[in-house]
């Protein structure tokens, strides 16, 4: 039963230090973006790419801060997910798990579902905290929030949350599979962060023009930012490319997990 394996994974995930550090860390990071945006927003026009107070008063003003934090949430999701699979190899616990659940695909699917659920809840929690902080900041900067609580405002809210959760699913799956291949939590997190934060964003896109639309991190970040990744990639294109990466990761991850000898 996948449910049994799923509940088993949650015994590990609900560990207090992991749970609170992830949930509070993400909430703090998202809130920080909100605070910075509201604190530095000019009265009108744009300043350094920041929205103005006028723009923040629009129906989509509530989600400005969160969309800017989306990429960071994705990177954290990648790291947490990667550590979950890689540590099973480095601790040697995978052999214990496979003796109790020899149907490997079932075990892998349950682990993915558990980690994705964990990250979806963490993202939702961060979003709720960020929205509360946005309300406080709006009050302190004299920004009217009445437009936020209209039909259009709620529409923006749901769309932003949906896109962020979609991207988090993608980041989590890529993290789980890369962690499974590298079998070392530290190596996976370092490599993942270096790829997403430096290699893609600062090196590849500058050295090889036109690659931005074909990179996994930028594609997922495009989804998370509702089509605004800063690299001129459309939402649909980002969605298609990210889906391709996720499918390839799932298939190769499942095949290797099912067939590879467990010697750790």
């Amino acid at each position, binding site marked *: *039963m996948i449910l*049994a*394996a799923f*509940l*088993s994974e949650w*015994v*590990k995930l609900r*560990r207090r*230090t*992991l749970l609170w550090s992830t949930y509070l860390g993400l909430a703090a990071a998202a809130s920080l973006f909100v605070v910075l945006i509201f604190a530095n927003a000019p009265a009108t026009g744009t300043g350094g790419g920041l929205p103005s107070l006028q723009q923040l008063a629009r129906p989509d003003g509530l989600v400005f801060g969160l969309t800017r934090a989306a990429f960071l949430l994705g990177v954290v999701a990648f790291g947490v997910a990667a550590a979950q699979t890689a540590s099973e190899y480095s*601790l*040697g*616990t995978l*052999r*214990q*798990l*496979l*003796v*109790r*659940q*020899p*149907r490997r695909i079932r*075990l892998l699917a349950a682990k993915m579902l558990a980690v994705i659920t964990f990250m979806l809840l963490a993202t939702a929690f961060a979003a709720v905290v960020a929205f509360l902080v946005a309300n406080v900041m709006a009050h302190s900067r004299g920004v009217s929030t009445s437009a936020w609580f209209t039909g259009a405002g709620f529409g923006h809210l749901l769309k932003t949350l949906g896109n962020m959760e979609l991207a988090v699913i993608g980041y989590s799956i890529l993290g789980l599979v890369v962690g499974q291949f590298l079998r070392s939590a530290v190596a996976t997190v370092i490599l993942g962060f270096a790829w997403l934060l430096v290699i893609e964003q600062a090196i590849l896109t500058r050295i090889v023009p036109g690659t931005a639309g074909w990179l996994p991190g930028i594609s997922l970040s495009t989804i998370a930012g509702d089509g605004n990744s800063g690299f001129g990639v459309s939402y649909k294109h980002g969605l298609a490319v990210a889906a391709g990466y996720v499918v390839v990761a799932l298939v190769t991850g499942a095949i290797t997990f099912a*067939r590879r*000898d*467990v*010697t750790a």
Partner: protein
Amino acid sequence: MTVIEATQKSGDRRASSLAVSTVQLTKRFGDRTVVRGLDLAIPTGAVCGFVGPNGAGKTTTIRMLLGLIRPTSGTGSILGGSLTDPASYLHKVGALIESPAFYPHLSGRDNLKVLARLGRIPNNVIEPALRRTGMAERAGDKYRSYSLGMKQRLGIAAALLPRPELLILDEPTNGLDPAGIVEMRGLIKSFTEDGITVLVSSHLMAEIEQVCDHLVVIRGGELVHQGPVADLSAGQRPDIVVAPEHPADLGRLIRLLEASGLLVTPDSNEDTAVVTASDASAAELNRRATQGGITLRRISERTHSLEDFFFQLTTEATTNPNHDMGAIK
């Protein structure tokens, strides 16, 4: 001894059933053959010692039995389930593989909970398993705070969760102090009272000798010997140690006994001679010495330990996989 003979000989309890049987089980990693054509026959209810030098292929074999490593060739059956379908038998198997591996930030109890939930094992078996291994009091502490012996005991507790019919223990006494080893011995013996078949690999031959009634010896990935431990001692005559009253007579005594066709090894440090696996009785040796004018101050039997057998078996340059007692006499 063939597999069939081994099965027949060891079958005083449940002759017809084997808990573990493999036929030509082989594992290759690239060009390296780690396990070669292994034919195992472990009777149900046995406590089977699984021994061999480092790198003999014990852990690889155990991992193949547990579905962790895919055999390159060969077939097998565990508790009636096929080796190719580990799910058909692993719910009846408990295992401690090499060093215990758990999540350091979880308590001992939560670590067992992870495994119990995964195997759809009811939570109410966790406490009895902890009590049986003496871990109940420290079960709420984080695993990382445990001593090596406690980690090992938690590993055994985890292996007991599915109420196993077969328990596979890979080096269960690793890291245990003498008291812990005695405790582990008692624990393993108690498993047989519950009708559990135990396959235990260890480097400590004295431990194997004390708890096992069946033995499998492998070397270089090949089977060297398997069968009941009782057969080893039953098939062996003890050596006889003799010492003349006057050390100066030792050379003459050896020549006298060798002239009778016996294999004699001097031990000049102790002024004794060892008559190897002699057909002659102690009384006969005494009579021959007396007839030669030598008075003996000591005649004693020296039985072979399992360790002696192990070294003979694993150092002999034989490639006969069905090696039997005759070959080590």
